[in-house]
């Protein structure tokens, strides 16, 4: 912008500004407003998440999905009891010790938890 020595001088004069005596107070006010905005944003996101969860749960219950899931669960339980438990019992305990179907459910759940931990670890490493 500056084309003459006077204009350079003017730019320099504009650049020289005194340190305001209430600089720290001003900074505090800005940081407080930043913090308030940040907190409000977190609360808003949390509230939206909770609201979404409630609406989702309401829709799932309303659509009768829970009944269907329960029916599938009963079917899966019967299947496990009839076929898988007997096979596992035969493979693991040839002497005739019966492996309960609940043990298979538990083993499956533990495997899922272990996979979750493994995945979390992998993500952290990456």
């Amino acid at each position, binding site marked *: 912008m500056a084309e003459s020595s006077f204009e350079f001088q003017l730019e320099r004069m504009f650049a020289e500004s005194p340190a305001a005596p209430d600089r720290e107070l001003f900074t505090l006010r*800005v940081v407080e407003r930043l913090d308030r905005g940040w907190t409000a944003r977190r609360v808003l996101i949390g509230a939206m998440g909770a609201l979404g969860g409630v609406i989702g749960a309401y829709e799932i219950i309303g659509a009768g999905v829970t009944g269907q899931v329960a029916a599938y669960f009963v079917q899966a339980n019967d299947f496990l009891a009839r076929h898988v438990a007997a096979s596992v019992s035969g493979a693991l305990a040839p002497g005739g010790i019966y492996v309960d179907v609940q043990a298979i459910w538990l083993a499956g759940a533990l495997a899922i938890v272990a996979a979750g931990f493994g995945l979390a670890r992998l993500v952290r490493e990456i």
Partner: protein
Amino acid sequence: MNTQRTLAGVHDLELVTLGRTGDRAAFGELVRRHSSAVRALLRRMGADGATADDLAQDAFLAGFEQISEFRGEGAFRTWISRIAARSYARRWRREARAELLADGPDADDPQAGFGVGVGADARIDLDDALKTLSDPERVCVSLCYGVGLSHAEAAAALNAPLGTVKSHVKRGLDKLRSHLSPDGDGGQRRQVSG
């Protein structure tokens, strides 16, 4: 306080990088370093003390939101000052002063400066000299020489014709030159008072 001491020696660009990650303490250090300059600029443009402080706060909050747009090509102070100056220009335009800009009058409209308690003569001189400018001249000169906007950028910020901005800048510069040069009015006044 401890964080502030730690951040005191950190370069602006590193603080900006930290600010991008949402580090509000780092951005607070940038506010501490540059708020005086931004507030002084707004006062020099013609804002009163409270308005200058409000606009400067808003500019820093906007700066925090838009910090990813700062690429470090210029100084952080210039970048944040431009946000504040454009914000003041928008406000000034809204507040029925636009007709002043369109008509291009020479009437003086002195307003409170930032010179209270300032030690350096040059700063007092500039603040005094700016008071001799009309409102449009003061805003146009500040946009061009305070934050380094081109005439076209200043015209865009003020939504005013380029020629009008150029003439305000020219008239403003002439007045400042006359006031600030040793043989100008300001110099004579200083010699008399000294």
